[in-house]
């Protein structure tokens, strides 16, 4: 039987699938705008807006509103804390995966 491991607690804010997708996309680029994030994650406009607001409130992303050719454009960038937490979250998921494989063999 596996011993409980406090280090394997998943980040609830990040673990939500929509937010996990957003942060994963942002972790591999410098920044991206709202339309690209919508395309890359498949989220609806409302869902994406809601998730971005939560992530910004938690300090994981920075949102900048600007105008390009007189049209509003929302640009999103991961903060240093956001980079660290998404990387840690994926590490946790990988650890859980290998632990479950080990448990399955026992």
């Amino acid at each position: 039987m596996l011993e409980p491991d406090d280090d394997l607690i998943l980040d609830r804010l990040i673990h939500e699938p929509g937010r996990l997708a957003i942060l994963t996309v942002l972790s591999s680029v410098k920044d991206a705008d709202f339309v690209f994030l919508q395309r890359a994650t498949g989220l609806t406009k409302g869902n994406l807006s809601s998730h971005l607001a939560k992530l910004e409130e938690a300090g994981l992303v920075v949102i900048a509103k600007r105008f390009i050719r007189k049209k509003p454009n929302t640009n999103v960038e991961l903060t240093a804390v956001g980079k660290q937490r998404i990387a840690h979250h994926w590490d946790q998921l990988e650890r859980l995966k290998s632990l479950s494989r080990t448990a399955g063999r026992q």
Partner: protein
Amino acid sequence: MQRRNLETAGTTYSYLRGWFYIPGGLLIILAALANWEVGPLRHTWAFPIAALLIGAACLPIARYYNENYGRVSLSTRQHVRGAVAVLIGVGVMVGGSLLMRSRAGWSLDLPVNAAAVSFALVMLISYAMGVGLKAHHVIIWGALLVTGALPVWNGTDPTNIGLVLTGVAVMASGVFDHRLFVRTFGPSKGPNLQDSDARA
């Protein structure tokens, strides 16, 4: 949710905006025609003007991708990979062309189409390092590589024919790149893509 697909969304966007390769391929073909002094391209001023017009044609293409699929800035690491791919590509193209067939004393003077072979290798390296080789890359650029490497290109310099073949390959690759781009990100008339109301 595929982690790999999400992490490569940025590079997929950058490398597979295939419509850009249509004017790119056309420019390469026009370069060959200019070398052959065909029609108005026999004038020295004609090719620069054609190049400017083709460059201008890229602006609506850029707008199409920006408005329908958004904007993304690649990370420093991705830019460095791209720069390394370019450097390797230039080295392969220049060195390979000189080695395979040139007036240089150390040239192997092989009966191959050095332009076609070099371009094919450059594109294969670039795609492999950037976004990973897709089936159509292997087929199109592999076909150009094999065609150029066939020992049938004796006689006069076949560079211009190589450029024409390359231009056609660039355009064909661009069409398939764009198809893959649309399969990845959806059709251009996709879901409601108005900008967000986050922090409205």
